[in-house]
């Protein structure tokens, strides 16, 4: 593949859920401790979302933050059929608390005990009303790595079943105004259970009927070297792929697709300057082989930086878009 000669900036976008503000966290704790109302907590989530949406000026797709999901599996574990409900109370019924890779945050690990079943509306119901929205879902590889599978015979059938459920949910998600789905594959970057995979399967279930028209589908690989991760999805019908610009060797990137370049560090408190973003984007364009179309964004979810810092990082991305325009 020739190195790109005519780059086309497609806009900025987030690369995963973001954190909650200190105020909303306090409202959440107050609700848990029985000294605050659920409505107040929900109000905090709504205020955070509103601030987040305002910050995404010039963005290709807008995220509502999905901060109410807590983890990317929870709405699925609560809504879809096929997951075990533990003999326990509250959130504990979903599954044991399990570390989210190498972070100080955790998720509840659900167990699949029967065939996954959907009514086609679970995802739409769990997403906020956002115009020109982007929704973040676990990619099939990470989904397969993060759930406890006691039903499907192998990882391939589990990934297929998951993507069938996602595909069945797409019409309702599109009806809600979503224009992009970004599948996140953190388990690749974290080197977890990569096994003998040479290709991540299941994306074809979204094309051409479900998402082929009017919906962009991407797969993002936080904390992975894109040069090693992108071959896993090269043969798929995805519209674009996301790379971690901090952990990738740009000179070895080779893809026929548009690329989301993760240039803002989701694990660092310092705010990237406009000059830094511009320099790194230029370095990518000069060194990587790709279709020419590119988005910019964070390298990972902005869940591991406090809300205020996340907003500042988003504004830095927005300013890059303004300059390019």
């Amino acid at each position, binding site marked *: 593949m020739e190195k790109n000669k005519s780059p086309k900036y497609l806009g900025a976008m987030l690369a995963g859920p973001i954190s909650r503000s200190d105020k909303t966290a306090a409202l959440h704790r107050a*609700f*848990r401790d029985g000294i605050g109302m659920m409505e107040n907590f929900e109000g905090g989530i709504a205020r955070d979302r509103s601030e987040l949406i305002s910050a995404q000026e010039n963005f290709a797709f807008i995220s509502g933050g999905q901060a109410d999901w807590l983890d990317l599996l929870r709405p699925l574990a609560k809504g879809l059929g096929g997951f075990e409900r533990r003999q326990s109370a509250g959130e504990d019924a979903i599954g044991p608390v399990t570390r989210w890779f190498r972070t100080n945050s955790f998720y509840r690990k659900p167990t699949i005990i029967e065939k996954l079943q959907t009514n086609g509306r679970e995802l739409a119901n769990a997403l906020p009303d956002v115009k020109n929205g982007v929704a973040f879902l676990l990619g099939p590889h990470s989904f397969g790595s993060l759930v406890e599978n006691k039903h499907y015979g192998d990882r391939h059938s589990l990934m297929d079943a998951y993507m069938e459920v996602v595909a069945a949910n797409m019409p309702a998600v599109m009806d809600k105004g979503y224009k992009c789905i970004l599948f996140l594959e953190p388990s690749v970057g974290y080197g977890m259970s990569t096994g003998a995979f040479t290709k991540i399967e299941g994306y074809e279930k979204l094309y051409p009927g479900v998402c082929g028209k009017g919906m962009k589908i991407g797969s993002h690989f936080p904390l992975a070297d894109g040069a090693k991760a992108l071959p896993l999805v090269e043969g798929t019908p995805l519209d674009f792929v996301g790379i971690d610009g*901090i952990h990738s060797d740009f000179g070895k990137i080779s893809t026929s697709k548009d690329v989301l370049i993760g240039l803002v560090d989701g694990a660092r408190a310092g705010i990237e300057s406009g000059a830094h973003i511009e320099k790194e984007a230029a370095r990518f364009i000069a060194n990587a082989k790709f279709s020419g179309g590119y988005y910019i964004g964070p390298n990972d979810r902005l869940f591991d930086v406090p*809300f205020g810092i996340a907003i500042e990082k988003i504004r830095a991305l927005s300013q890059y878009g303004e300059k390019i325009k």
Partner: protein
Amino acid sequence: MREKAFITQEIGSIQRPIWRQKLDAQPNPEWIAQAMDWGKRLGVDEAYELANGNKTGLLQKRAIERGAEDKERIIEIASIYVIRMLESAGLDRVFNGEQPRTEMYDFLAKNTSGIETAGVLNSFDANYFRKGIVNGKVMVKEDGIAFFESEYNFVSKHTKKIVKPCLTGPYTMADWSYIEHYRKASELRGAGPSQALKDGRRDAIMAFANDVLNPIVKRLSSAGAKVIQIDEPAAATKEAESEVFTQSINASFEGIPSGVEKAVHLCYSNYSSLFPALADCKANSYLVEFTNHASPTNFKPDQVSPETFKILELFGEYSMDVDIGVGVIDIHSDLIETPQVICDRLLYAAKLVGDPTRVQVNPDCGLRTRRWVVAYEKLRNMVLGSEMARKEVGD
């Protein structure tokens, strides 16, 4: 060091009672009743200081009348409540449930120069933690060292049991901070972003070990602590750092006499990834989470994460002559483990370890997320299950 088989202990935190949390609140009859109930149940002599018939108790004072000394005394009494709770449950080793501290990361960060608070992040469910930015060289403050010493002395004064102080470890402190100072230092030496991150992490971890943990550990040892536990929930989160993790534990315990048990608590991680580097670690005991994924009422080895129990085999494979604290209590569930299931887990672990006197007993992690009534029942059953296991092995 090995007093008997299946020595029982808590990991660290116990939920702070609401009357301990809300030091600035007006008198609340419900909270006072709660304090009195537990005071009576646990035989806490100091309970009358919280509330009494003359209505002069610390919790009976109006918020405006409650001074700094009063609040400090409430915190001390909360510590005594926890000591009595752990004694009453029958534990061999006790501490104060971290009642005087805020949270495991936050408290040590506040007592370390070079760190500023960045904001809060979600841990899980409605639990959050404050994350700090390391903007300068980290160094424990003298006040911080003095606090940990005085905390140890206070607990020692109020119990005849073995006192086991716990401290958040260097790897976890660095991993849960934004290590800007150390990354920038590496960048200034010419490293690219990826290398600067690696170098920065290594330098920050070792700085926390040498300049934060070690001075505290030395002071605790001088004060007479016979067991000191370093908590490392973040251990094993980066496979490539298992060597620096091991070095940081060794550096934290540097200069501590051999008669002091150097304990490390690990939880919610892929422990296998710590090997083979962990074989060079000089800790004497590892208190590990084992029950998170298990059923509270039935024990079958195949219902427990095999990955988790694999660490027991690994200690053997690497000929590590260490004690293993087996987590037999799920700290995320209100369901109470039965003594029988605890006994079964311990016997299973003892079989894998090959020597029951090398098996200690503990919950998976601190019990701060559980109400007292649940925590107490769980700990009580943990002691009963351990007694059953002891009988089984004839100890």
